[in-house]
């Protein structure tokens, strides 16, 4: 035991120093945002009361919530499709092994990174300002953000393909288009499909939120219900969101398992 202790000992103080430093940073942060244990405990009865109100949903809002959610899912579906279409060419320009020129790979990756940095909700605010409130703005926000994230994932998928078929076709004298069509596409399509499905899962969650800034869907119902503190309507909308998102996740995961 003493020998073991001697072996462990040298690192110990570092761990404690790290934990101590972190505790200081945590307390400083908590003070900065005026969070305290007392405030949490004070807030608990209120939160419990609201939770109870939400657990008794107003079923007369079930229909409206469901049609709001359908719009959100449509926004996610169209947004994902827009993202797929725009990401597809960008990914091949950005993939190191397929890019027509090393500069195109570098530039493509930087562009995709730049697009990805913008959060969907900020994009949504812009599109709402430019095109007016509604599902169109939400679709464009999701489409643009998905272009960045899908483009990056697509490009990574392209970079891991087996170079064998490519070389074989090139050696046989096939041109660029034929090489692409017969050697590259068949290898990446299943993975592209799986990645897009996964993105659709994420986007259907995001679409429910975008309504909070005016981009249509169930978020619009949510905002109004929250403004008037109609907790029973909030509860109804939440039930619909949870049910539909869970359904989409399960179906999409099952599909993805068959693809890859």
């Amino acid at each position: 035991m003493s020998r073991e202790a001697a072996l462990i000992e040298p690192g110990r103080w570092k761990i404690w120093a790290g934990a101590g430093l972190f505790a200081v940073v945590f307390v400083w942060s908590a003070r900065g945002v005026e969070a305290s244990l007392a405030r949490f405990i004070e807030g608990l009865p209120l939160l419990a009361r609201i939770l109870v109100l939400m657990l008794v949903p107003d079923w007369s809002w079930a229909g409206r919530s469901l049609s709001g959610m359908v719009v959100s899912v449509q926004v996610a579906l169209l947004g994902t499709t827009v993202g797929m279409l725009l990401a597809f060419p960008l990914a091949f320009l950005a993939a190191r092994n397929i890019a027509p020129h090393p500069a195109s790979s570098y530039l493509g990756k930087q562009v995709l990174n730049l697009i990805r940095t913008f959060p969907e909700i900020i994009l949504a605010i812009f599109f709402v300002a430019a095109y007016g409130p509604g599902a169109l703005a939400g679709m464009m926000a999701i489409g643009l953000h998905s272009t960045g994230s899908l483009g990056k994932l697509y490009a990574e998928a392209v970079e891991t393909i087996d170079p064998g078929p490519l070389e074989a076709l090139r050696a046989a004298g096939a041109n660029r288009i034929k090489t692409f069509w017969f050697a590259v596409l068949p290898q990446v399509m299943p993975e592209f499909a799986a990645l897009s499905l996964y993105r659709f899962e994420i986007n259907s969650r995001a679409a429910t939120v975008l309504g909070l800034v005016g981009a249509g869907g169930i978020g619009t119902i949510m905002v109004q219900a929250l403004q008037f503190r109609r907790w029973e309507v909030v509860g109804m909308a939440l039930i619909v969101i949870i049910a539909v998102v869970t359904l989409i996740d399960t179906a999409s995961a099952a599909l993805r398992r068959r693809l890859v």
Partner: protein
Amino acid sequence: MGDLFPPNWEVLPVLVSPALQTLQMALVGTTQGALLAVPLILLASRNVTRQPWLYYGARAVLNLLRTIPELLYAAILVAAVGIGPFAGILALTVFSLAIVAKLTSESLEAIDPGPMEALEAAGANRLKLVRYAVVPQILPAYLSYTLFVFEINVRVSFVLGLVGAGGIGQLLLTALNLFRYQSATVIILVTLAAVVMIDAISVRVRQAIV
């Protein structure tokens, strides 16, 4: 869109303190979530929790919590406890709790059963089993997931203000509502810079830990 340029750089000094507050929100929310996740991690792991109803119950709660996006939590909590960073921190806490617990419990189910069996055979109680066989194996994964969630939370905390939950996003909302687009541009640029910076730092720290 042309209204966004040129950026009004004069607002930059005013943004320092809200940007800092935003990071503090992310830090407090992630820490609280990660700490509250500990019991749920153990409950949601099949190899630690042997009672099926407890295990499935914990799993169901985690899955349920994860279906609701952070911004939705924030919007609901703003309506419940009022506008300000407190609502944002609560939202970040709930969401961090769900993700950290879910990911860590999945890693926990894959740990080497050897040490646990050895301790059990030697007659150790549940607490000692967790302390000496589970914690040492799972700690790196737990810390790594917490950092990963912190990274997400930094991104999210910068936009939480758009639904009224405090931080720099609230200034962005005000700027947009008052049509001060050139100031909004600077806020957005600060947000993007902060996100890129935190991503880079987080990647380094995670590499050092794992």
